[in-house]
């Protein structure tokens, strides 16, 4: 009696690309494409969404490298806008602190200590917020992908998904965190290593997208 096929779970997100015989070449070429400004990021997002599409179709092979611009445009747009908003808030606070530190005499010494405490709270806050943000990456990407560029900007749907599916959101966030570390580790260890790890990290994220969407989408009976 043949063994029942195992269900693709969050743990499989790390290993699924290796089942494809041509994964190395495809990952390297896609990572090279991803280095092109603007177009590269959009192509990489399109490629990972195509990989998730294939997983939905039961095809566990890494898609060929290419310019998947039409597939990645809407998620790229939403990610770009939110990245811009986050960067604007972050750097405004950062520059504010730097200006306050360079003019300590305008404030009293007690205010200076408050400022110093505020700086540590800010650094701690960055760590906390960036880690919490991982909870919303996968639901946010799926909502943007399914709703479109403009409607995908509304964060309410992704926030609602996190509260509706806390366990899946947490597991997807942990996999996204691993994917983020994996994507950057090549550059950290040896700069050209990014040609392997950037694409591989994207495929791990694609796996998380697939499992999360499969587990949380209500299908008609």
């Amino acid at each position, binding site marked *: 009696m043949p063994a029942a096929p195992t269900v693709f779970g969050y743990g499989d997100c790390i290993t699924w690309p290796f089942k494809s015989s041509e994964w190395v070449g495809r990952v390297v070429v896609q990572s090279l494409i991803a280095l092109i*400004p*603007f*177009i590269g990021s*959009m192509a990489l997002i399109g490629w990972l*969404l195509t990989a998730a*599409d294939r997983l*939905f179709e039961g095809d566990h092979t890494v898609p060929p490298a290419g310019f998947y*611009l*039409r*597939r990645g*445009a*809407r998620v*790229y*747009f939403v990610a*770009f806008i939110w990245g*811009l908003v986050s960067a604007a808030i972050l*750097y405004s606070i950062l*520059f504010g602190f*730097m*200006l306050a530190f*360079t*003019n*300590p*005499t*305008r404030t*009293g*010494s007690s205010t*200076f200590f408050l400022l110093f405490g505020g700086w540590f709270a800010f650094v701690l806050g960055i760590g906390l917020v960036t880690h919490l943000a991982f909870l919303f990456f996968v639901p946010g990407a*799926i*909502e943007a*992908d*399914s*709703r479109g*560029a403009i409607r995908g900007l509304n964060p309410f*749907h992704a926030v609602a*998904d996190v509260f509706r599916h806390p366990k899946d959101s947490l597991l997807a966030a942990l996999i996204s965190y691993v994917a983020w570390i994996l994507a950057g580790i090549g550059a950290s260890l040896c700069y050209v290593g990014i040609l392997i790890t950037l694409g591989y990290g994207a495929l791990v994220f694609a796996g998380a997208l697939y499992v999360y*969407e499969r587990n*949380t*989408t*209500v*299908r008609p009976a």
Partner: protein
Amino acid sequence: MSATPRSARLSSPGEVVAILIASAAVWAVVLALVLALFVTVFIPAIQFGGKGEIPTDFPVYPGAQLQSAMASGFSGCTTVSATWTTPDDALTVVGFYKQALSSSPWTITDTQPLVRSTTFYVEGNGDQHREGALTVEAPSFANGSTYISLALAKSNQRVVGSCKVVVGTIGS
């Protein structure tokens, strides 16, 4: 979650081009804005942030250009560092400060003449106790500017004695 079929999740070529152009344009604008802010606000704020802390009764050599002014404060003690340049020769500048710092509320407590520079150790009275050093340095090449630097500690009367500036050159 909206169940849009995956095959329908494609943007039109027009949307792709519009998003790419818009993101590149926004990026260019943000970069230009950050650079402009840095050059016009941030750098001057750091370079001249302590300008208001230079005592108003401190004599500034006529026509000298302020190059930097930084201040820091701690426990009722404010330290100010400022630098000026002037095209006039160092001897004229030294003569000006010898006279200007000898009149109330400033007193020269010591003078240290070196080959290319002269340092005046000064004290000032008033609402605050002020003490520090002013150095006039001759230009290191012909037609260069004379360099004037001030390091001053200001304190209220309660913390006098615990508020000092250390001025000097290693080896001199």
